């Protein structure tokens, strides 16, 4: 992937490691100065050898914390490098396989339902959860010979699924999960060496195995065919690579909690430096990961003195890492390697009229059910007609309309993005518009005591448009290259996740509400907003045929598309704008319920819809039905508790998706 690396600004690139080193050194010295009260070596040694509380805080608190940042950062970056190497996707990271999500879900379930089991130790339970998810991904991906596409999709779906269940539980039971939010935010505070020592051993084992196996693993750079000819088994190599990555991720997550971004950024910086050999690449990644996490954690220690509340390192890596990645996008070559995934390029629809009728009937049944079936005042199920329906209609009607419109829009946006970028991980969320909107909303919620719904929407709108402008400005020079757009989107989402983790860890009561909103809820939607949403959805439909040709060609790759006479910059720019407008409108009115946008295109494709136009329309129908069903289930299942529609969509669609993936896997062998 980096075989013919060429850079316009080698000096700037070489500056990145230097800046990182200086930054972490300065921050470390600053925090040591705060801890000891002076930087005089004799005073530091005096304090370290003393026996009062301050000495204890230095030797049992500050020192292990400094070291654990280095160990965890290095381990995560190695894991990230391994995942990116195996999955041939620069966006892969330790979170891709859903290990952290699995660990968090299992910890949440144990904390809520078997709190007695916590005696085993939080880290043991988290490790078990992560390993369970790892095995699940392996079991599902085994049939396809660990094909990168299948591994990424399964991992991502499991991650989303675990995340959705965890968030749903967090919204209902947030009081019981306070300590879990701290773990989830990745705070590195230490009270002794008892976490650091076993972790170091485990990470060292992983790193040593990686170093010995680096040479054979290099073969994964070749195509499966070439590797087989050379006598290697690509499936076995991938399994090995993934196993080491999982081991590192699981042990680190279990010990220190969820620290996003380091595992993505470490290898990303290395790749930009143009290092080719896997062993060197992983070693450099480890060094950058360690420096990144160290800088972030020391920065946190300096910062928390001023802020007066806990700033967890894991949350800060997201907040710092986002802008860093955005700066680095400018250095990424525009023709950087696209993810090498086997995307079906046939445009002939498969399947019969019967299938299409089935989809339409499904949509009709879901809409009718959502309108008529409800719960009475005692919580008993009932079919609601005249009077009963009239009472609840002003609160139920707009939500059904809103869910339908949002599902349609996001599914269309998702289809456009997945075809345009030829990346199955692309979803409306990866545009970063949703996260931008969310950040705008946070700004309003936190600058006022009790802002109204419309003020929050105004804030979100401004946030969404600033983000959109920024993404266009950052990617314009590259002709809106897909990888750049996706990386920019991921960076902005990381920023938002960082904020949420920070707020949840700090225990701010506003965080739960933001969490509910950011999972896509139609709560409190009135007919005014729902009608605006529905009009935009309807208005977008006549535009679709205009994109059909472009979107039929794009999965063939940029070179073919260009040679067939498509103006890449123009077409990408127009479609990006279209997808962004749909996403922004849906996000502003009902929150970022992006799962429909990710899964509906896959479902439509698996239903046999291959032509761009039928793919988009099929996805729109499936997206609408999915969101209506999800919204209804979210309102009714745990009545009067509500699970946001976005989460419910993930919970419903996750298993369907895994089942479909299993079918593909079986077909491949």
């Amino acid at each position, binding site marked *: 992937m980096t075989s013919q690396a060429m850079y316009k600004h080698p000096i700037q690139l070489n500056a990145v490691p230097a800046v990182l080193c200086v930054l972490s050194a300065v921050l470390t010295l600053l925090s040591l100065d705060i801890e000891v009260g002076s930087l005089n070596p004799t005073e530091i040694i005096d304090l370290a050898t003393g026996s009062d509380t301050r000495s204890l805080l230095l030797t049992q608190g500050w020192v292990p914390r400094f070291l654990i940042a280095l160990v965890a950062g290095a381990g995560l970056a190695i894991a990230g490098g391994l995942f990116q190497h195996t999955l041939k996707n620069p966006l892969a990271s330790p979170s891709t396989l859903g290990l952290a999500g699995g660990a968090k879900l299992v910890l949440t379930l144990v904390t809520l339902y078997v709190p007695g089991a916590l005696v085993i130790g939080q880290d043991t339970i988290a490790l078990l959860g992560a390993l369970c998810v790892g095995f699940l991904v392996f079991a599902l991906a085994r049939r396809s010979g660990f094909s990168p596409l299948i591994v990424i999709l399964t991992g991502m779906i499991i991650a989303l699924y675990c995340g959705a269940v965890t968030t749903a539980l967090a919204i209902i039971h947030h009081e019981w999960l306070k300590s879990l939010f701290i773990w989830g935010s990745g705070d590195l*505070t230490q009270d002794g060496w008892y976490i650091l020592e076993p972790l170091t051993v485990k990470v060292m084992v992983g790193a040593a195995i990686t170093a010995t196996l680096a040479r054979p693993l290099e073969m994964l750079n070749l195509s499966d065919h070439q590797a087989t000819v050379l006598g290697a088994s690509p499936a076995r190599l991938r399994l090995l690579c993934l196993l080491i990555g999982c081991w590192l991720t699981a042990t680190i997550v279990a010990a220190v909690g969820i620290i996003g971004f380091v595992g993505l950024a470490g290898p990303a910086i290395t790749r930009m430096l143009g290092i080719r050999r896997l062993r060197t690449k992983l070693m450099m990644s480890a060094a950058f990961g360690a420096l990144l996490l160290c800088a972030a954690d020391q920065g946190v220690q300096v910062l928390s003195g001023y802020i*007066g509340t806990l700033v967890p390192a894991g949350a800060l890596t997201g907040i710092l890492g986002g802008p860093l990645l955005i700066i680095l996008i400018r250095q990424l070559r525009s023709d950087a390697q696209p993810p090498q995934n086997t995307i079906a390029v046939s445009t002939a629809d498969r399947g019969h009229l019967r299938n299409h009728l089935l989809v339409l009937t499904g949509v009709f049944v879901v809409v009718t059910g959502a309108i008529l079936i409800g719960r009475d*005042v005692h919580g008993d199920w009932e079919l609601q007609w005249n009077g009963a329906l009239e009472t609840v209609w002003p609160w139920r009607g707009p939500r059904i309309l809103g869910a339908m419109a949002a599902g349609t829009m996001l599914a269309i946006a998702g289809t456009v993005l997945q075809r345009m970028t030829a990346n199955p991980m692309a979803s409306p969320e990866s545009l970063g518009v949703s996260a931008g909107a969310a950040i705008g909303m946070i700004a309003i919620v936190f600058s006022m005591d009790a802002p109204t719904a419309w003020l929050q929407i105004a804030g979100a709108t401004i946030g969404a448009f600033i983000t959109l402008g920024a993404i266009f400005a950052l990617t314009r020079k590259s002709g809106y290259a897909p990888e750049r757009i996706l990386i920019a989107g991921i960076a902005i989402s990381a920023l938002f996740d960082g904020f949420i983790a920070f707020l949840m860890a700090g225990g701010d009561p506003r965080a739960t509400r933001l969490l509910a909103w950011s999972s896509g809820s139609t709560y409190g939607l009135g007919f005014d907003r729902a009608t605006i949403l529905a009009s935009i959805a309807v208005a977008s439909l006549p535009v679709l045929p205009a994109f059909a040709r472009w979107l039929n060609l794009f999965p063939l790759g940029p070179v073919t598309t260009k040679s067939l006479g498509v103006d890449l910059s123009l077409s990408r720019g127009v479609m990006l704008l279209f997808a962004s407008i749909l996403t922004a409108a849906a996000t502003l009115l009902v929150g970022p319920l992006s799962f429909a946008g990710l899964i509906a295109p896959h479902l439509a494709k698996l239903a046999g819809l291959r032509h761009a136009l039928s793919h988009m329309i099929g996805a729109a129908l499936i997206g609408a039905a999915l969101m209506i069903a999800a919204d209804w289930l979210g309102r009714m299942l745990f009545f*009067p*508790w509500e699970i946001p529609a976005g989460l419910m969509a993930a919970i419903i669609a996750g298993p369907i998706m895994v089942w479909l993936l299993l079918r593909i896997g079986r077909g491949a062998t």
Partner: protein
Amino acid sequence: MHENHRAYSRRLFLKGITGAYTFATLAPILPATFAHPAMANIVKRLVIADGAIAETALAMGIVPLAMADVPGYRAWVQKPEVPESVINLGARFQPSLERLAQLEPDLILTSSFYANQYASLSDLAPIEKIDIYDRKKTPFLNAMAAARKIADVTGHPHAADTLISNTQSKIDQAASRLTTSRAGSVLVTSMLSPRHMRVYGQNSLMQDVIDRLPIKNAWTGPTNHWGFATVTIDQIAQYSDAALIAIEPVPDTVDRAIQYSPILSELPSIKRFGLITMPPVATFGGLYAAGRFADLLASSLTAQSADHGEFAS
């Protein structure tokens, strides 16, 4: 730390009480002179979406038709108890709108923090906003005003007087019991893990109550809008004179960490007083929570003086 004496102002409290008393004596006269309908206007179908308001109303014997997050209240606030008849509305920030519509309420009580989330509710029933935690940062005085307002709008004008005087006597009793307390200052916390805790300070109800007692709150650092700061163990290590109080439930991991964690076990405060635990009390509560906190604080600190040196866990 010593500026805290300023906040320990009996005068301020007396002023509040005198005001309350004047109001209380006038209160029965005012509605009587205006009109009888006000007395007849007892709200039958009352719905409460905020925890502190629900607690205050229940303490005054005003039972709502429905309130938000009943299971959460039973676990984390406990007293005053919620009658079985009260219908659950779901999450405080997202009460089920369909159930609300079916209940046909006459009045909805909530705080502005939640109210603006569901402005559309005003189509269903009048909304009354009552705030205890706001920018004025005087939760105790706000809680008193809130009690009166709840009593007024629900048509039980005398109910607030009893609660206010009960609270005052609880605080007075606690003050006299605490004169023999060994610890001169306290750190009131909710433990989250062996390394993390919430510590309550300025703008919390606990701070306002402690200001009315002959002890001090050791935490004078910054706090958020709700009066607490989430801190790590190293930030509280320096307060060696203060008794560390943990409001239950305390995670099991904390008890075990006292054995093996070098920092937690060597913490001067824990070595001196042990980790003092206190039964659950609403940490963002109203007037009833203030009285309950004073009572529980006095019990835990005086019980501790008796068996000093033991780990009271």
